């Protein structure tokens, strides 16, 4: 009798680890996993790394500066995923905007240069969106192609050379400056959070994005121009990547054609850890923001703990897998 029970259990129950994960996934706070995770990780590092400078203002500033470009892109990517699209080209757009923007700053000054860099990002996004709609090809495939396109253009525009930017005003606004003793990295991140969150939750545009991602046919049936929505989210994504490129350029006071190479995956990780699904119809800007900062805190803590770059990457990968196992539960 007991043998049979054991066999039955073995057939249905997935073992202790699987059970634990399943219990975590069933927990009502699974959507809030990223916040709990943030608190736990932060508390862990605060205790174990107290004597290594984790809990210092300077260290937090470092984290904010390192995560600002990803945070900005993560907030925009929430719109892209909510609309059931994806933008794989953001890393390439970062470099393109940075390289073109840096040269424009050097030639025409900070305001025009910044506008040009941002415009390059928006135009790249508009190109993605227009191709997706006009050619009727999924954004995954289009942006896979345009990633190469933008990367090639970046190499041509930069001649594979660094482009130093010595403009002090530009470096202040996008890199190292502070307003009312708040570092600009924090201001850019929070601005992206507030604007994106309010737009998604409180405006007609946000409703259209969610409806388009949830059920494009019904969205169209109620008269939503879903093509326009899809182009718009990719333009927003491109614009955010352009802004991220400017922030990098301000921080390192120059542009390199390799900027942003790892940013697409880092951004997607931050967004999905924050609870936004890849299937569309739902998105959490606050989750993406916290997800981005959380990834930054983890990297920073592992660095302070003395792990090598390779070990940091390995542990980060493990944490992403654990995080999505909790935050991205699929229905049956």
């Amino acid at each position, binding site marked *: 009798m007991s043998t049979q029970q054991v066999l039955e259990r073995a057939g249905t129950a997935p073992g202790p680890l699987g059970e634990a994960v399943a219990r975590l996934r069933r927990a009502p706070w699974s959507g809030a996993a990223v916040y709990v995770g943030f608190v736990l990780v932060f508390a862990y590092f605060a205790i174990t790394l107290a004597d290594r400078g984790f809990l210092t203002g300077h260290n937090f500033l470092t984290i904010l500066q390192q995560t600002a470009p990803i945070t900005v892109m993560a907030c925009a990517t929430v719109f892209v995923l909510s609309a059931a699209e994806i933008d794989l080209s953001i890393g390439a757009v970062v470099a393109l905007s940075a390289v073109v923007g840096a040269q424009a700053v050097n030639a025409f000054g900070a305001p025009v240069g910044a506008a040009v860099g941002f415009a390059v990002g928006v135009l790249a996004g508009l190109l993605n969106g227009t191709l997706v709609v006009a050619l009727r090809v999924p954004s995954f495939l289009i942006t896979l192609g345009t990633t190469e396109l933008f990367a090639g253009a970046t190499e041509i525009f930069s001649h594979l050379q660094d482009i130093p930017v010595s403009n002090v005003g530009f470096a202040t606004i996008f890199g190292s400056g502070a307003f009312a003793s708040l570092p600009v990295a924090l201001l850019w991140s929070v601005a992206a959070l507030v604007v994106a969150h309010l737009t998604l939750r*409180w*405006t*007609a*545009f946000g*409703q*259209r994005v*969610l*409806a388009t991602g*949830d*059920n494009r*046919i*019904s*969205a*169209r*049936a*109620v*008269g*939503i121009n879903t093509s326009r929505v899809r182009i718009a989210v990719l333009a927003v994504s491109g614009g955010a990547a352009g802004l991220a490129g400017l922030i990098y350029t301000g921080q390192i006071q120059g542009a390199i054609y390799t900027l942003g190479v790892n940013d697409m995956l880092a951004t997607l990780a931050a967004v999905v850890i924050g609870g936004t699904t890849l299937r569309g*119809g*739902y998105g959490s800007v606050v989750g993406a923001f916290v997800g981005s900062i959380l990834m930054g805190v983890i990297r920073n803590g592992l660095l302070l703990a003395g792990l090598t770059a390779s070990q940091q990457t390995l542990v980060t990968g493990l944490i992403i897998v654990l995080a999505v196992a909790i935050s991205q539960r699929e229905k049956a």
Partner: protein
Amino acid sequence: MTTTADSTTDSATGLRVEGLYKSYAGVHALADVGFALQPGQVTALVGDNGAGKSTLVKCLSGLVQPDEGQIIVDGRPAAMHSPRDAAALGIETVHQDLALVQHSTVAQNLYLNREIRTKIPVLRQLGWLDHRAMQRRTEEILRELGIRVPSAKARVRDLSGGQRQCIAIGRAVGWSQRIVLLDEPTAALGVAQTALVLELVRKLADRGVAVLVITHNMEHVMQVCDQVLVLRLGRLVADRAVSELDSTALVEYITGLRSDFATTTNGGDRAEPAVGGERA
């Protein structure tokens, strides 16, 4: 050019269709279809698969443009190029796939693409929404129609199939729309859920709405409908009061054993099997 007396008594209100044609790649999906929908009446649209029911509803809801013929709303010929045009004329369609946004709330669904914006000037231009007003109004609409859901803030994916269908229908009539087209509203529902939806359909008509229901269920036709239209191979073969018919007669119309209109133009077709209504 319909000749049935009881369907053309009042041409000033409701919806009238005259000589509607639509073909896809040379195949007539609709040929010379004409009828009228009266306020306060539930009209059933029945027919075999491929009879043209969906094409007809798409024409009436602005999703598809007919090749020929007129759609007359409240006595005036209507030009509908999109569902928005149809909505502006008071025609609302509830599609078979429910057409609801699963992750959004009941209120968000009711107000999808016609959101109430805030009255605050600058924010209004930015598209800022008044969620509270939409929730309040949603509760009112649901109460009026007797639709029971946990709350206007409930997410659609958490509702039962019947509740979802009622919300979809509620959305169609929440705008004091006068003509409502329902594409198989009970297709995927259980018995209790179906009763809920049929009750709502009847209630709509009693409020003076002209309702068109596509259905495959003859029992429902007999239960809640006043009028029945039968399509076969893109042509109207019956336009009758339900009281004149029984299920057997209906099935005979659907399968082509009977026809009221197809004496002159459609004669050659009827001997052939239903292979898609191809006509030279």
